[in-house]
């Protein structure tokens, strides 16, 4: 027995020892990994987001940069605060940019976005030199607003290929807004108290504010506090209320007029007339949007009223740092330097709140000398001060420009976002890429710093249980535009502050900029599975490509794989596991030798279904095909993928190339649509041999239809047409001709003696300039007024007649043949056209069930217009539809 016990004890000891060893092993592995991660973090963080930085590198060289289509470098204009960009410029020069030739610098950042926009425009014109080359733009910090202003508002929009915005301003991340508001609210309480002590006749109701706090206090006192009292009496504590989640909602419903005037529709546009430089460049000032930013302060005044009600009438005490739970957070901050930054910010907040005693206590928590902490002027942390000034404390004092900066920034952010959204293609509103206006929309690349310290320090304010990693969603919402398929948004982690200049000092950011100037992440070249000689028969390939939400990924099919007429079919399978709320979006660009680019969308039956498209035939004139994909938010959801926390997903692609006979015009043959319809639809078109994989031209395609929603063509109607003329006679007068039918007009104007430059611009339906004509007019001094006539012509849409010849009544189960013919005239100035028909000049449809169905065909006309000063290419797609009544057969065959 005792021997057994001894043995048992030894066994126990041995087992215990093994368990301890295993545990130590596991800890060692994890600890090592953690140490590695920590060291990477300490080394400056890692750049998140998909794609590679730096482009291709050879040895120690830094490749990247941008060669234009003709081989020359694409000019680059940099606009940013004075003294910024030093290291970046060195990097650009080592990549081949030459100062003054293809690298121009505009000093901005003064807050006057309109003036800065004028400077940017001038720099771009200088960079363009004699031709219409597009340029690249790098805009740093607030200068991003000026860059966007220049691109969209100036009378002759500057042609930009890529706009890289480094730390552009947003409307203030939530925490920054919160801090700012918190600081202001306590400050205005003092004003409010003073107002209350004034005799009734001396209380201003709507003063010209010299100080923001005074403005808030005055508006709160005179307008919003009585309404807050009503809100609580009539809604929050009444026996029938409780319908509104907050005061602003109640205000919007119950005080519609006030809300509309003071908040929703507040007006006080920037004083454009104080920007003379703008007047020189633009004959007319930019359109003034109706919603302004004084509303920003009206909302804050409403907030102040709510705060005053709680603070003064309910005698709730002021918010303190202790309420924010900051003490606990500060002790968890990682490094001493960051702690000091946070402490500095918060101490300034405490100072603003009037809680100096708390600030002193805070310094004791940190163990830092109280005098050093409270001596803000001597604080040697410019980044903290910059951030504090920009985000935490509003522009103080009586200087209007300080407040004006905030107003202008918010104004532009709201206004220009909407205008850009209306004029640019978005992921929700995609269409043909090439327009008569010339170059396609520019690509926007946003490089934003992720400054986690502020979020980590204010968990209570952000409302999260744990500190948030970043506030990417707020940044995107407030900073950028609706995401377009070519846009990229990259968050740089480990940034010491929100100061954009500090970002430019980082090697990884410099490499990233070079990479984006070179076109972004390189497309993945497609290689056929089997090596086949060029142009000889069908090839297939499949593989995987990473897809993310913050930037596109591309596959590239080069022209040597597309030689000769043929059809390219692309199918993409989304990953089996995808993040909720995100769907895969895919598209293709077919770049032709004539410089046009056609865009084709890949469709699927549902969020989880494969996306596919028959890209059509290329007739041998295709330079390359790019297939792009990325994740986008599902409709109705404002979601943004945080590239730092979500891993990219693998998308499986299958690409098939089927040569066609070259007989006849470049017409689309069959169209297989494996992605359309619900399960159960046997819509694998291409029966009869013209679909993918058959390798030879055969009978026309047959489209099987089960559901009414089944489409016989996936092309979308799109036309580029002249919409209006904008005339500027050069003497301060102008006119608009809004009749789209006036493509050939003559306009006259009478001039007084002097020299003038008259311009006429033809604007298309998207607001882009199709053609601009200028005339110089000279009327001698001392002479009579001169009446001058100007003749202006622009593109006229071709007259297209489409006929679908086929049965109006049919039966189920039997193919019905349809023939499509298109007559297209030759408009003035056109010097070449190609016509393609989808699903084909001849096709069949088989219905599986009776009903009334729609048969549609798309005719795509590619037109070239030659004007004296330039050529214009247009791709118009017309859709013709017929209805077919399908009856069930009486007996089966």
């Amino acid at each position, binding site marked *: 027995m005792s021997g057994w016990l001894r043995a048992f004890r030894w066994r126990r000891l041995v087992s215990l020892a093994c368990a301890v060893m295993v545990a130590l092993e596991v800890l060692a592995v994890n600890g090592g990994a953690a140490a590695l991660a920590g060291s990477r973090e300490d080394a400056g963080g890692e750049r998140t987001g998909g794609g590679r930085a730096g482009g291709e590198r050879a040895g120690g060289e830094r490749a990247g940069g941008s060669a234009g289509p003709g081989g020359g470098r694409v000019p680059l204009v940099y606009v940013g605060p004075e003294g910024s960009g030093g290291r970046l410029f060195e990097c650009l020069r080592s990549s081949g940019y030459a100062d003054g030739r293809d690298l121009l610098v505009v000093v901005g950042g003064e807050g006057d976005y309109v003036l800065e926009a004028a400077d940017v425009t001038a720099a771009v014109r200088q960079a363009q030199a004699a031709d219409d080359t597009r340029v690249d733009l790098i805009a740093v910090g607030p200068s991003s607003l000026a860059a966007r202003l220049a691109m969209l508002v100036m009378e002759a929009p500057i042609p930009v290929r890529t706009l890289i915005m480094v730390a552009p301003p947003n*409307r*203030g*991340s*939530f925490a*920054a807004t*919160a801090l700012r*508001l*918190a600081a202001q609210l306590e400050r205005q309480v003092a004003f409010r108290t003073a107002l209350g002590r004034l005799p009734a006749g001396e209380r201003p109701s709507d003063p010209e504010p010299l100080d923001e706090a005074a403005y808030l206090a005055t508006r709160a006192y005179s307008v919003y506090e009585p309404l807050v009292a009503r809100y*609580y*009496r009539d809604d*929050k*504590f*009444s*026996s*029938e209320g*409780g319908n509104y*989640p*907050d*005061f*602003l*909602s109640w*205000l919007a419903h119950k005080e519609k007029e006030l809300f509309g005037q003071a908040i929703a529709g507040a007006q006080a546009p920037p004083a454009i007339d104080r920007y003379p430089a703008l007047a020189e460049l633009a004959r007319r000032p930019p359109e003034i949007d109706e919603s302004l*930013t004084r509303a*920003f302060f009206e*909302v804050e005044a409403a*907030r102040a009223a*709510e*705060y005053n*009600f*709680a*603070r003064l*009438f*309910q*005698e*709730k*005490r*002021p918010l*303190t740092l*202790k*309420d924010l*739970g900051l003490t606990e957070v500060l002790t968890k901050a990682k490094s001493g330097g960051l702690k000091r930054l946070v402490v500095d910010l918060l101490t300034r907040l405490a100072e603003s709140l009037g809680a100096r005693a708390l600030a002193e206590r805070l310094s004791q928590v940190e163990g830092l000398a109280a005098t050093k902490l409270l001596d803000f002027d001597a604080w040697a942390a410019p980044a903290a001060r910059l951030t504090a000034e920009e985000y935490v404390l509003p522009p103080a004092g009586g200087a209007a420009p300080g407040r004006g900066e905030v107003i202008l920034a918010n104004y532009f*952010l*709201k206004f220009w976002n909407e205008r850009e959204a209306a004029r640019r293609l978005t992921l929700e509103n995609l269409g043909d890429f090439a327009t008569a206006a010339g170059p396609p929309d520019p690509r926007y690349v946003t490089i934003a710093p992720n400054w986690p310290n502020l979020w980590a320090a204010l968990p209570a*304010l*952000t*409302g*999260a*249980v744990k500190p*948030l990693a970043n506030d990417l*969603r*707020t940044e995107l*919402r*407030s900073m950028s535009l609706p995401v377009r398929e070519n846009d990229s948004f990259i968050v740089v982690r480990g940034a010491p502050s929100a100061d954009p200049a500090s970002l430019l000092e980082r090697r990884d950011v410099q490499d990233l900029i070079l990479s984006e100037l070179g076109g972004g992440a390189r497309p993945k070249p497609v290689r056929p599975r089997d090596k086949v000689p060029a142009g000889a028969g069908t090839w297939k390939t499949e593989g995987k490509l990473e897809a993310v939400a913050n930037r596109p990924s591309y596959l590239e099919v080069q022209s040597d794989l597309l030689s000769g007429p043929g059809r390219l079919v692309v199918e993409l399978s989304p990953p089996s596991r995808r993040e*909720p709320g995100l769907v895969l979006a895919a598209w293709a660009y077919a770049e032709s030798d004539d410089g046009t680019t056609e865009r084709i969308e890949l469709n699927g039956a549902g969020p*989880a279904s494969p996306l596919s498209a028959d890209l059509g035939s290329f007739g041998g004139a295709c330079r390359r095909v790019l297939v792009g994909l990325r994740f986008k938010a*599902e*409709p*109705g*959801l*404002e979601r943004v993928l945080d590239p730092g926390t979500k891993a990219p997903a693998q998308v499986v692609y299958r690409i098939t190339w089927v040569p066609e006979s070259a007989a006849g015009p470049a017409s689309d043959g069959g169209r297989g649509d494996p992605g359309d319809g619900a399960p159960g639809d046997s819509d694998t078109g291409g029966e009869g041999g013209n679909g993918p994989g058959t390798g030879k031209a055969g009978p026309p395609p047959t489209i099987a239809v089960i559901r009414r929603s089944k489409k016989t063509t996936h092309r979308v109607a799109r036309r580029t047409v002249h919409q209006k003329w904008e005339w500027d006679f050069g003497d301060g007068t102008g006119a608009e001709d809004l009749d789209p039918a006036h493509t050939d007009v003559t306009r006259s104007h009478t001039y007084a003696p002097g020299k003038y430059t008259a311009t006429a611009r033809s604007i298309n339906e998207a607001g882009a300039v199709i053609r601009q004509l200028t005339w110089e007019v000279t009327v001698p001094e001392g002479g009579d007024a001169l009446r001058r006539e100007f003749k202006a012509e622009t593109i006229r849409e071709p007259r297209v007649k489409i006929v679908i010849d086929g049965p109006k009544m049919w039966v189920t189960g039997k193919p019905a043949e349809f023939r499509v013919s298109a007559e297209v005239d030759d408009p003035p100035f056109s010097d070449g056209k190609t016509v393609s028909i989808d699903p084909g000049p001849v096709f069949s449809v088989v219905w599986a069930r009776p009903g009334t169905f729609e048969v549609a065909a798309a005719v795509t006309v590619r037109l070239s217009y030659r004007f004296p000063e330039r050529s214009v290419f247009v791709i118009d797609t017309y859709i013709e539809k017929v209805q077919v009544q399908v009856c069930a057969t009486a007996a089966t065959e």
Partner: protein
Amino acid sequence: MSFWFPYGPNGEGDPRSAAVRRTLAVVAVVIVAAVCLAAAWAVAALSEGAGCRAGRPDSARFLLLTITETDNRVLQAAIVPGLAPGPEVTIDADRRRLVVARRGLVPRGRYRALVRYLAEDFDVPLGEGLLAVRRLPWRFDLGRSLGLSRRLGDLGSIDPSKRLVSGPLALLSIEAAGAAVIEHLGNQLTLRPGESYARLWVNDGGTVRVIEPGDEWRRVMEEALAGRVPVSRLIVANHGWWTQGEMVVGDTASPVRPCFMASPSSGGE
């Protein structure tokens, strides 16, 4: 005696092994129950539609009730308006949608009624929940602890004793036409769709009084607010039949929040 045969040849039992077997049996039952529950949830999850719909996109209907408590003295500090996290569940009456900030807030499966519970102090949510009523009668303790201390952090900022609502609230039955029969403080009444039940508690010099809707309500309420006296209001409203397809995941921020005011993250992601 061995472990698996706890009873000896003479029928005597081994108490120790029997206890172990009992324990293992309980553990096994718990594991099986957990697996079954998880499977049920998984099935329910699979059947949920994709996209922004939070509920199953079918016609499964439920009665939507709201229980809203409003206080004035629970929060001791004046929270900056707009700073505090907003509610995670809101009713968009204009578009007839129940908006939830996160899909995880939506109860799984089917339920006879859904109760949106919210306790707030000057628009700052103190407690919130979306509660599924699967069996009737259903009881809810209005004075239940909201875990304020744990959630709002500093004790100095809150005074839970200033929440005056009291009593169990019971949902006794639901009629076919959508009327809800409720009981509170000894009162039983029927709320038809669109109707509500309200009570006001006021701490009148240490004595808590309950006020019913009427002339006295407004006078007592205004006096209490003016005098900084603790007051709590309860409203139970019947919003009628809704379907699970009318629940969406989205931004619960106020629809009139100006776009230039950054929206707070709700719940973190």
